[in-house]
């Protein structure tokens, strides 16, 4: 999976399932939690999605606003552990 495919898959999930507005034009650098688009509950859900979809386990202490607030950050975190 390329970075752009991964980014697209994450964007689709986040806008459709977490922001509940598939048409929302989410920018790569937009604060998802800090911008009030989702609440911190949804970070736990993102962890479940990433594990189910990409088989990547992000430990609870890493699912924080500081580390998972922007699509850029989330993509980089998943990409880090994706098999090359």
């Amino acid at each position, binding site marked *: 999976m390329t970075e752009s495919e991964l980014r697209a898959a994450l964007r689709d999930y986040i806008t459709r399932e977490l922001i*509940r*507005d598939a048409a*929302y*034009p989410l920018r790569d650098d*937009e604060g998802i*939690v*800090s*911008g*009030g*688009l*989702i*609440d*911190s*509950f949804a*970070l*736990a*859900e993102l*962890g*479940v999605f990433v*594990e189910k979809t990409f088989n990547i*386990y992000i430990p*609870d*202490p890493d*699912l*924080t*606003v500081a580390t998972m607030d922007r699509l850029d950050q989330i993509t980089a975190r998943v990409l880090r552990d994706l098999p090359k």
Partner: protein
Amino acid sequence: MLTLATRSSYRTVLDAAFLRGGDPGATAIVYLSATAEPIVITRAAFQRQVRRYAAAMTAQGVRARDLIVIAHTQNLECMVAFWGALLIDAVPSMFPTLTEKLDPQIYMNGITALVAREGVRAVFTTDDFAPLLRPLVTCAVYGTSDVPTDLFDDTPIAAPDPDAIAFLQHSSGTTGLQKGVALSHRAVLNHLAGYGDAIAITPDDVIVSWLPLYHDMGLIAGFMMPLIQGIPLVLMSPFEWVRAPAMLLRAIDAYRATLCWLPNFAYNHCARRIRERDLDGLSIASMRLFVNTSENVSDASHQLFYDRFAAIGCTRAMLSTSYGMAENVFAVSQTRAGELPRVETIDRDALEHERRAVVVAADHPRAVVRTACGTAIAGTQMRVIDRDTGALLGDRQVGEYVITSDCLLTEYYRRPDLNPIDADGWYRTGDIGYLADGCVYVSGRVKDLIINGGKNIFPGDIEAIVNEVEGVYPGRVVAFGVDDVREGTELVAVVAEVRAMQDAETLHRINADIRRIVSTRAGVTASYVQLVDDRWLIKTSSGKIARSANRDKWLRERAEAGAS
């Protein structure tokens, strides 16, 4: 223990187990953290810390009957401070914790307004907040390092009048206009005796909680009850639990917990967001009761929780329900221990239009499921009245609940303009529902209150905030709650009129601005934000925005868009 039978031997909350003696080495509190080892505090150690804190408060000039606000992050210090104030007959109140969303300035304004309105004597807070808050308020402000910890722990225990106000609970509204619910020692003890009877509390019980201590459920069930009754409390931070919900189940397993109070959304949160690997080797079979309370109780949420966790020991009999409010200390009704909540299927039309609960078959086209919240606890009586005429209604007739009890609030603190209790001793709850064989079926509220994740939100507050967003027509905003089956709670929706034919970038900016300002100013997430053209919103004949009509229109349009 404090029971209906032993009630007469307790005068005030200062007869709490950890202050009365007994086994000094027994565990009072276990404080869990995601990043550090558990802290275990015995009754004797907690008593020492409380007495020292009381000595510090006395040295700082706090006197009997002074109102003390504790504005901490949830930690051991706030628990010690609360009891320290009680020990010297001061009146403590836990102020909500600052969340990472909420703008600190808004938070500070809330405390400032409270201090001015209620004549607060001192605020005890963190070292970070103290210097910021000090210039804003007229009372003393103490950070953690301002409180000496080396004083003698020999502060005598006060002997307050049982009818004196013990502490205040502030409702969890989004503005600074919350009312302080003033509760007497007598009311708190009566409540714990009656409630303990309903849940058949025993000395072997262990309470586990992630609930915030400024909320009635957290303050009473998850703090005062275990310390007064002398049973261990296993507590964690709400912020850590939200991000890592498996913490709760690990705590149940590790400490063989038996009792846990949860708002409805927490059942969905645990069932949907705990990862399978986090359940390995865990058992929750030690539990006696999970108590679902503080927002609409959903049988579907119970089913989701049961299906997910039956394999690690959850049973249907553990899933109990309760209905409550701070004005009655905490609970009004509760399913009795070992008794399943009654669930019935009723006709939606009859409920809404005829105000009657008519039982129908599960496959009826207008079937809605209602889960009962048990029957009134000992010492509390409930009735249903017609909202307009005040006439008493019969079984299965829908109206407003009124309650009378031996544990009602004394007053709203320093609000002589509000008379919450009528001449006959009845309190109007503002909640709508019916009674059937004594069982409580809540179906709505008099006001358009939204309860999101256990937090009360007034739509008018959200609308006022959104009105300030550039690009939104002032006064042409509506906010309302939308039931969400997946989350098990009400979500906040905002519909705002904006100028037509704007470019996509401007609309994105307005949309993002609305979400950000609602989050930072009200501390909640606007889950749905819809920008509409001029004249979309329905107004009443007097020109006001009609909230429920607009909610219906929005739901209808969404259903049509989804169907097409």
